[in-house]
Structures are given as structure tokens and as C-alpha cells.
């Protein structure tokens, strides 16, 4: 109503005494509470984090910052352990997201062909997704426990003599698989939604033209659902970079730092060593990395016209 009044020349002419254009327009006023809330929740903490990254933080007697210049940043870029954590994070990221995409899409394709009981099957497949990650970690820890764990028992009967969470390679594989177990259903669900949107007529036309199953998949299905897959990839990627709970519960970053990815190191630096300045530098680097990944995906979506 107000907008109509402001934009209509006829109405403006009838109130020549109307005040000039206000500094904050109606939309701005409406958005102001939200912006204030956003500032309180995000912008101010972000600025505090930036300030902390250039400081040494004292806790006792109230939080105080002592400026130390670039030393936290220099340390974060020259710390060999930190670089190893980044390498592990990237390997972990590629493995979890890659496996989840492949398995999720595979499950979605299988489910799409099921006509009877699809909802029941889908419900069962989605179950892991509803479990809290820390509970997934606990479950994984008990299943791999060498005294009473089911998986440990099965692997032992197959000739595996070590302890699953006791050696670097198997521990890393175990935490990757726990994440894959939990989040593959999400990819399956998103992919299934994408598959349902592929027009039946196009599939039938391909079949009439004699396209094989693989050709249909390659030239019809994948191009049709690629945008949906890209969104799924974006969602999972943002999550995988921040992965924490399962590793913290199962291996605590060990053995031999084999599962110490950047979020674990960040937590350790902040809340075990209380070196908040260095932790802020690590956190901001993680944020920059997340933004880079997100920008890459958003750009891909943008080129396809999906962000408009």
C-alpha cells in the first residue's frame, strides 16, 4: 500500500507537502531488526574473530586482547603439523564426498526402478541420516571394538589381525566409512528427487530410438539431474569441511594423528590449549577454504542459470 502510494505520480501530486525520500526506506526499516540480529549473531563475532587472530587472548579477570601482529598467521602457515592436517582434510573431503555421491546416486537409481515398497525401502535407507553424528561415532566405536565389536569379529574371522581403530590406515578408513554410512542417504534422497523430475516421455523416446541402459544414463539421465547433483555436492561439501563429531568420539584424532583433520586441530587449539588467537587464525583459514569451495560450486550453478 505504502509502496503504491510512493510510486504513483498522481498521489504524489496530491500531497505536495510530503517529506523528501527518507534515508532508510520502508524495506530497509522492515529488514532492520533482521540485520541487527544478523550483526549480533554473525558480523560482530566475525570481527571479534579477526581481532583475536592478531592477538594473544587473556582469559582471567575478563577477556582481554594483546596485539601480537601477524604471529598467529605466520605460525598457521609455517606449522608443518597444520599442513599435514590440511592434507588429511582434503583427502578425507575427496573420499567422503566422492563415495557418498557415487553410492547415493547408485542407490537412487536402484530405488527409482523399484515400484512396489519404494517408500518403505526409502524410509529404511534414510534411517542413518536421522542419527546424531556423535551417536554414529559411539555406534562405530562399539562395532569396531576388538573385545565385543561385531565388525571386529567379522574382520577377525576373515583374517584381519589388527585393531580397526588402532592403526592409522584402518582408523582413517573407518571414520570415512562412518561418515559415508550416515550421509549417503541424503545424496540418495536428493538424487531420487532429481530422477523423478526426468520426463517419462524423454525416457520412452530414448528407448524407442534403441538407446541402451548406459546410453540413457549417460546422455539423458545425468544431464537432466546434474544440477540437482551439484546442489547435493555443495551441501555435503560444506558439511565435510567441518566434520568433527565422529572423529572426536572414535579416535580423538589418533592414532599417530592419522585422523587429525583441521576441525579437530582447531578445537584442540581453542578449547584444550586455550590459544584463542591461533585458533582464530585457523578458523578464519577454514572459513576462507569453505568460501572458496562454495564459490566454485555456486559459479558452476551460475553458469547453468540456476542461481537466478
Amino acid at each position, binding site marked *: 500500500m505504502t509502496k503504491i502510494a510512493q510510486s504513483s505520480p498522481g498521489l504524489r501530486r496530491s500531497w505536495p507537502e510530503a517529506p523528501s525520500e527518507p534515508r532508510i526506506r520502508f524495506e530497509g526499516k522492515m529488514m532492520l531488526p533482521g540485520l541487527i540480529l544478523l550483526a549480533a549473531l554473525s558480523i560482530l563475532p566475525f570481527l571479534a574473530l579477526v581481532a583475536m587472530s592478531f592477538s594473544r587472548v*587473556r*582469559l582471567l579477570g575478563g577477556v582481554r586482547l594483546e596485539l601480537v601482529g601477524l604471529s598467529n598467521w605466520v605460525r598457521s602457515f609455517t606449522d608443518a603439523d597444520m599442513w599435514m592436517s590440511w592434507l588429511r582434510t582434503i583427502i578425507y573431503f575427496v573420499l567422503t564426498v566422492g563415495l557418498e555421491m557415487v553410492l547415493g546416486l547408485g542407490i537412487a537409481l536402484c530405488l527409482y526402478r523399484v515400484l512396489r515398497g519404494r517408500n518403505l525401502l526409502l524410509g529404511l535407507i534414510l534411517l542413518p541420516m536421522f542419527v546424531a553424528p556423535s551417536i554414529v561415532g559411539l555406534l562405530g566405536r562399539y562395532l569396531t571394538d*576388538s573385545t565385543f565389536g561385531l565388525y571386529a569379529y567379522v574382520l577377525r574371522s576373515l583374517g584381519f589381525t589388527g585393531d580397526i581403530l588402532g592403526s592409522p590406515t584402518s582408523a582413517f578408513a573407518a571414520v570415512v566409512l562412518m561418515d559415508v554410512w550416515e550421509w549417503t542417504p541424503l545424496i540418495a534422497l536428493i538424487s531420487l528427487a532429481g530422477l523423478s523430475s526426468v520426463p517419462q516421455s524423454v525416457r520412452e523416446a530414448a528407448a524407442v530410438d534403441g538407446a541402451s541402459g548406459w546410453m540413457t544414463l549417460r546422455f539423458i539421465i545425468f544431464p537432466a539431474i546434474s544440477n540437482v547433483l551439484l546442489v547435493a555436492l555443495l551441501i555435503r561439501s560444506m558439511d565435510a569441511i567441518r566434520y568433527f563429531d565422529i572423529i572426536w568420539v572414535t579416535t580423538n584424532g*589418533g*592414532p*599417530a594423528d592419522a585422523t587429525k583433520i583441521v576441525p579437530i586441530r582447531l578445537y584442540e587449539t581453542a578449547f*584444550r*590449549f586455550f590459544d584463542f588467537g591461533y585458533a582464530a587464525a585457523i578458523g578464519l583459514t577454514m572459513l576462507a577454504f569453505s568460501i572458496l569451495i562454495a564459490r566454485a560450486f555456486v559459479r558452476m550453478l551460475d553458469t547453468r542459470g540456476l542461481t537466478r
Partner: protein
Amino acid sequence: MGLSRCREVQWTVDLSRREVIRGALATGASVALAGCGSHSDAPRIAGGDPWRQFKGATLNFISENTAPTAAIAANLRPFTELTGINVSIVTLELSALVQRVALDLASGQAQYQVIYADPYQVLAPYQKGLVDLRGPQSDPNLPDLPGGLADFIPTQLDAAGRFVDRQAVYALPYDAPTMIWQYRRDLFDKYRDRMANDLGFDPTPGGDRTWEEYFQIARWFNENATSDVRYGTGHQARQHDSLMNDFSNVLWSYGGDYFDNGKEVGRLGTTDPGPCRLGSEAAIAGAEFYNRLLGIADPASTTWDWDGVGAALRSGRLAMCPNWHEFAASNEKAMPGKIDYAPLPKGPVGTANMYGGTGIAISANTLPHERGAAWLFLVWSTSPETQLTNLKSKAGGGTPTRTSVYALPEVRAAEHRPSSMPNMLTAAAVREAWQPDRIGLRPKIPMWNECNTAVFTQLSRMLTGATSPQEAMRSITSRVDQIVARGWVA
């Protein structure tokens, strides 16, 4: 005209809405400020019974989820009846506790008035945030400590209660877990003669055994007793604080140490410990032995902390292990009469039994009456009567930190089976372990948490074969030196 009236009406409605919104905001802000602002002190009734002067106060006690606190929590009613003070107990895993305590001390408010002050993770880094207990102890309006400070075991009072200053006391010894040799008595009885014949020495666990003999006994079980147990020994060798504890027993017995003057750095603590000495020949020899020992231990050892190895012993998987003596009560419950205790073996230089005791302290952010009420809780919870009740508690119970409790006839009687206080079955072993020359005290320095992480991470690398014992010790040395050089700000 009509439109104008309409605008007037709307204006009126707008005004009243604004008033409502303003009112709501003002109320919200005042509630928030009240929540964030300073809280009021506890009431005090002057004169009369000194134990009831803070009647109506509420205390929050934050503690690690340990057996003594479980026993205290199950037995709070006598304190409330005695003082009229309500106590809420929050129990957490140790690292979560340290985090909460640090943030609470930083807030300037004492949400937790009574603090379970781990000497290495709370007392050393945040000593300035704790009350010097000589203040309330000398206050004539407050009750005295029964038996005084002298009744506490002296090494424990220094290790758990003091930091640098020999006079100041920041915490009262509250629990005293100590690592000792826990073994399957039934299996040692069964195989003693065969083992003695095969190994050429009496395998009975005790202070005279050496780590080398421990190794041979463990290997003997691996090779000859698999029908009874899967492995001779198991260890708490997860990449965790537990790995540093387990390794340190061997390190000290081989003559290695973290810093020069290690006994003093462990007992009283320091803010500047000097250069790390883990690169010494003795330390490397200790690391080499530990690596060899873990090579024949249960492979799951690298996934166990103290709880894991305790559960493995109780499940019948292991013949022996080093572990905290406070597991005796749960051992006796799971395997009555089958597990016995001895001090840890000795190395080429001597023996050392890691002490993991903790004190109970008062936050320096407390208001005066709250501080008085917290003192009452400290006095009560560490009193001989309460420690005796805790020993008998079905909810767990630790082991006393006062010499007078160990001297009580019923406690001495409980050192032998059948025992109504199963933790006392370890008394003979821990009595030896607490001798000043045998107690193992890790460095009490403010930056220990980070140093500790460097220690157990490199040890974990050594155990997985990623690095040699020599490289591991040198790597720890350089990392610890870097951490110490950065210093500590609290």
C-alpha cells in the same frame, strides 16, 4: 477526509504498537541484563551455629565424572541437613570440565563456586582464578579443617593443592588415583611354578620385579596361557592423556625425565621448567623398552584409555596391566577375589607410579558469603567421616587422601578379603607407591596440556611404527621446548 481519518486511526494503532514493542524490548533487555549481570551474594545469618550461617545458599560444584564424586553425589543429604546449603553437582569428562572452568573463570562470575581442580589442567594454568584457602582456614567465623592440613598425605597436598608457592594452598586433596600393577591372581597361582621354571625367576608381582621381567611374564602368557587369556598384558596407549601416563612410569624407572629437577617440577610446579630432557639416553632407553613392550601387548591397547584397559582386564582378556588403583572396586565386582595389586615394576634406576590425584578448590570469582559456603563444602567433603562414607559407598567411592582414615581399624581390616571397601584391597600397593621416592609426578606447568598432547601424539606415532623411539623422543623435545618458549598467558 475519509482517507485522513483512516490515517489518524492507523497512526493511533501504530503508536500503541510501538509502545507495545518498546515495552516488550525494554522488558526483554532488563531480563537479559538481569541474567547477564552480577548475581547477588548468598544470605548469611551472623552468630549461632557456624555450620548453618549460610543456610539457604546454593552451590554449584563442577567435577570430573569420577567415582569419588559419584559417591559424594549419592551422599549429599547429610551436608544439606548440616548446613542448609543446597549443592548441585555437574559431572563432565575431564577435557569438557577444563573448558567450562576456564570459560567460567574468564566470565568474572562464579557460576561454579566449587571446582574440581586437576593440578595440571586447572590448578597450574588458572591458579590466579582460585582462592588461597589459607584465607577461609584462618577465618574465625568458619569451621576448621578437622585434623588440619597436616592430616593430608604430604606429597598429595603439595601435588594437588600447591603451585610454586610452598605456603599457599589452592586446593584440598580430593582423590588420589595412582597407577599400580593389576594382575589375575588366579592365573598367577595356576601357572606360578611353570612360569618360574620357564623364566628362571619368581614371577609373583611386587616391587622387586623389573620391567624386563614384566615383559617376559607377558610374553609367557601370550605363548602358554591362551586358553585362559588372549594376551599377557594390555595398556592404555590410545593417543590420549592415558598414553603419557602409561609411558611415564617406564620413562622414570629408566632414569629419564621431562625436565631437570623433575621431582620438584612435579611436586610444586613451576612456570619456567627450562629445557626438555626427553632427548637423553635414559629417556630413549625407556622409550625403546616401552615400544618393545607394546609390541607384545594386546594390539587393541592403542585404542584404549584407562577405561578401555580396565574393561579388558575385567572381561578376562588380559592377565595383567598397569592401571589406576581406583578401578579395584569395579574389578572386585566383576571378578571377585581374582584380581590382585602390586606396585609397578622397577627399571634400571628405580620405580615410579604415576599419581593422578586432584584437589577441590573455590573459584576466586565467588562473592564473600558464597565463598564461606563453598569452604563449608570443602571441609565436609574432605573430612575423614565423609571419606570413610565414600569408601563404603555403593555408588563408587574413591580412596581417602587423609592419613587418619587409613589408620582407622575398620579401614585396615578392609585391606584383606572379604572386604566391604574393595578399593582398600590396593592399600598395601599404593602405600608403597606414595613414598616420595616412588610417586610419579608429571610436570606441573601451566602449558602442560599442550606439552602433553605433543608427548602422546609422538608416542602414538612411535607405537604405529611411523617413527623410531629415538626420533620420537627428539621430536617431543623440540616441540615441548617450542611450547615452553611461547610461554603461557591466562
